[in-house]
C-alpha cells in the first residue's frame, strides 16, 4: 500500500439517528471502535463496507472506495466482514462456506491451510453449519472472511453473541490473527475487556460522533476522556517476558527496560505481553518502601492531576525518572493528596498493588 492509512468520514441521517464521524488510523494492527450501544459503531462499519450508503469519504491505504464522485459497491471492495452472528450459509458445508469467496492466494495471501491451522477448524470441514457450536460458527465465519483475501477486515462485535466461556475460547484465535497476519482490522466492541486484549488503536464514539481517536495507551490515560475517569480505568503496558522464577511463580517482564514482577506461567518467557494496571491499584509515595509487600515500585513523575468527584484525585504518571515513559494512572484520595503535598511535576514512586497479563495465558 502506498499510503498506509485508513481515512474515513461519513455523515448523514438514518431515520432519527444522525451520524457525523471521521477518523484516520494506521493501516496496521487492530483499531477498535468503542462506545455505548446505539452510538453508531455498527452503522459506521456498515458504511465502510458499503452496506449502508451515507455521504462521505472512504480510502483504504490509497485505494478510494467512496468519495464525492464514486461509490464502489460492496462486492467490489476488498474487505472481509464478520457479523455479530456468524451468518454462515445454511445450505453449504463448512468447506464450501470457507471457499465461497475464496480467491487464489497471492504471494502474501492467506491459504486454506493457513486459515484452518490458525482457527483450528480442520475437523469441521464436512459438517453443516447447523451442527456447529456458536464459537465454531464464528471461527468459520472469520476464516471465510480471511479467505476472500481482504485488504481490511471489519468485525462487528464478533464475540457479543457468545457466552463467556466461548468468548475466552475465541479471543486467543483473534490474538493469533493479530500476531501472524499483516492485515488491518477494524473491530467494533462495547466490551473494554476485549479491547484491552486486542486493540492497538482506539476510536471512541458517542451519539454518532467520534470523540477521540489514537493509540490505545494514549486515549486510556487521557484524563479528559471518559475512559480514564471510569471506575474501572486502567492502562495497558507493552512488555517482553524475560525470565521466570518457578519458586514463586513470578515472571519478570520489562516495560521500557524497567522490570515488573507478574504472576504468570513459564511459557510466556521470550514473548511479547501486554500488562494491565488499574488506576485503583496504584498508590503514590515519596520514598520507595523497603518494607512493603508490594512487588512493583517504580519511579514516576506526576504529569497532570485532576479532581475525580469531591474526594478523589486522578493523576497521570509518566514512567521512568524523567516522566517521559509510558503513562500510568493513579486514583488516590484527596486527603492523601493534600497530606503528601502532591502536585504536578513532582517526582516520586508508584506502588502497584496488582499487575496482570491483559492477554491471559498466551497460546502463541
Amino acid at each position, binding site marked *: 500500500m502506498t499510503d498506509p492509512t485508513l481515512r474515513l468520514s461519513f455523515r448523514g441521517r438514518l431515520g432519527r439517528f444522525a451520524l457525523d464521524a471521521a477518523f484516520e488510523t494506521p493501516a496496521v494492527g487492530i483499531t477498535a471502535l468503542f462506545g455505548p450501544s446505539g452510538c453508531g459503531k455498527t452503522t459506521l462499519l456498515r458504511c465502510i*463496507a*458499503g*452496506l449502508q450508503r451515507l455521504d462521505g469519504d472512504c480510502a483504504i491505504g490509497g485505494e478510494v472506495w467512496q468519495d464525492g464522485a464514486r461509490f464502489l*459497491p*460492496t*462486492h*467490489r471492495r*476488498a*474487505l*472481509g*466482514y464478520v*457479523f455479530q*452472528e456468524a*451468518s454462515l*450459509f*445454511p*445450505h453449504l458445508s463448512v468447506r464450501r462456506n470457507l471457499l*465461497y*469467496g475464496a*480467491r487464489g492466494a497471492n504471494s502474501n495471501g492467506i491459504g486454506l491451510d493457513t486459515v484452518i491451522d490458525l482457527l483450528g477448524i480442520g475437523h469441521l470441514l464436512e459438517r453443516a453449519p*447447523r451442527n456447529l457450536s456458536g464459537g465454531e460458527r464464528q471461527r468459520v465465519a472469520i476464516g*471465510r*472472511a480471511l479467505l*476472500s483475501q481482504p485488504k481490511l477486515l471489519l468485525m462487528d462485535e464478533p464475540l457479543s453473541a457468545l457466552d463467556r466461556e466461548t468468548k475466552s475460547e475465541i479471543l486467543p484465535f483473534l490474538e493469533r490473527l493479530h500476531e501472524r497476519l499483516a492485515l488491518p482490522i477494524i473491530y467494533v466492541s462495547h466490551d473494554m475487556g476485549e479491547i484491552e486484549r486486542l486493540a492497538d488503536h482506539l476510536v471512541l464514539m458517542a451519539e454518532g460522533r467520534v470523540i477521540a481517536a489514537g493509540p490505545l495507551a494514549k486515549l486510556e490515560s487521557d484524563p479528559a476522556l471518559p475512559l480514564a475517569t471510569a471506575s474501572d480505568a486502567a492502562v495497558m503496558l507493552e512488555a517482553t517476558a524475560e525470565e521466570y522464577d518457578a519458586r514463586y511463580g513470578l515472571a519478570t517482564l520489562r516495560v521500557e527496560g524497567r522490570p515488573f514482577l507478574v504472576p504468570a506461567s513459564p511459557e510466556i518467557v521470550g514473548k511479547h505481553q501486554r500488562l494491565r494496571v488499574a488506576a485503583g491499584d496504584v498508590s503514590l509515595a515519596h520514598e520507595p518502601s523497603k518494607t512493603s509487600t508490594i512487588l512493583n515500585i517504580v519511579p514516576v513523575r506526576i504529569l497532570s492531576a485532576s479532581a475525580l468527584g469531591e474526594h478523589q484525585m486522578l493523576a497521570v504518571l509518566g514512567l521512568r525518572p524523567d516522566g517521559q515513559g509510558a503513562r500510568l494512572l493513579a486514583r488516590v484520595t484527596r486527603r492523601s493528596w493534600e497530606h503528601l503535598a502532591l502536585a504536578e511535576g513532582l517526582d516520586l514512586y508508584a506502588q502497584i498493588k496488582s499487575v496482570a497479563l491483559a492477554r491471559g495465558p498466551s497460546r502463541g
Partner: protein
Amino acid sequence: MEGLSPEIWVAVRLTIALAATTTVILLIVGTPIAWWLARSRAWWKEAVATVVALPLVLPPTVLGFYLLVVLGPNGPGGALARLWGDATLAFTFAGLVIGSVVYSMPFVVQPIRNAFEAMGERPMEVAATLRAAPLKAFMTVAVPLARPGFATAAVLGFAHTVGEFGIVLMIGGNIPGSTKVLSVAVFDYVEAMQWREANILAAGMAAFAFVVILAMTLIQKRAARISE
C-alpha cells in the same frame, strides 16, 4: 383403465401440458416479481402485490371476461396473433396458457416472496462482502435458501392450473386436444349424463389434490427442519 375413451387421455395430456407450461413460465416471471416485492421499499409495492393477488378473489368469469377482451381479435392478443396469421389468441392453447399464468400468479409469487422475506437481508449482505456480484449472490444464495418456497410455488401453481375451470370456459371454449382440459371434461360428462366417466375423472382429480396438499405440507416441514 380399460374402456376409458381416448378423448379422456387427450384431455389428461392437454391438462398436464398446460399446467407444466404455465408453471415454468410462472417460475420465470414470478421470481423477479417476488424478489422485488420482498426487497423494494417503494410505497406502491403493496398496490402491485394486490394486483397480483386479485385472481384470488375475482370470480373467474370476471377475469375471463377481461382476458377475452385482451386476447380477442380487437385486443393486443389479436394483434399479436395476426403476426402468424391467426385472428385471435382466445380459444387457443396459447391463450389458455396466458390466462392460466395470470390466474395462478398469486399462488406462485406469494410463497416465493415469503421465502425471500424470511431469509432477511443478511445472507445477501454476506455474499456481497465475499465479493459475489448481485446476480451470482442471487443464484448461489437467495435461490437455494428459498428452495422450499420455490417447491411450494411450483406445486401450487401446477395444481391450481389443473383445477381451473371458469377461466377455461370463458377464454378456451371446449376444443378437444386444444383447450378441453380435465375440469371441463368432467363438466361435459355430467352434462351428457356419462356418470361412469365423470366419476373416474372426479375421483382421479380428488386423489391428485390430496397428494398435492400432503406433499406441500411435507415440503414445509422438511424446510423448517433444515433452516433452524
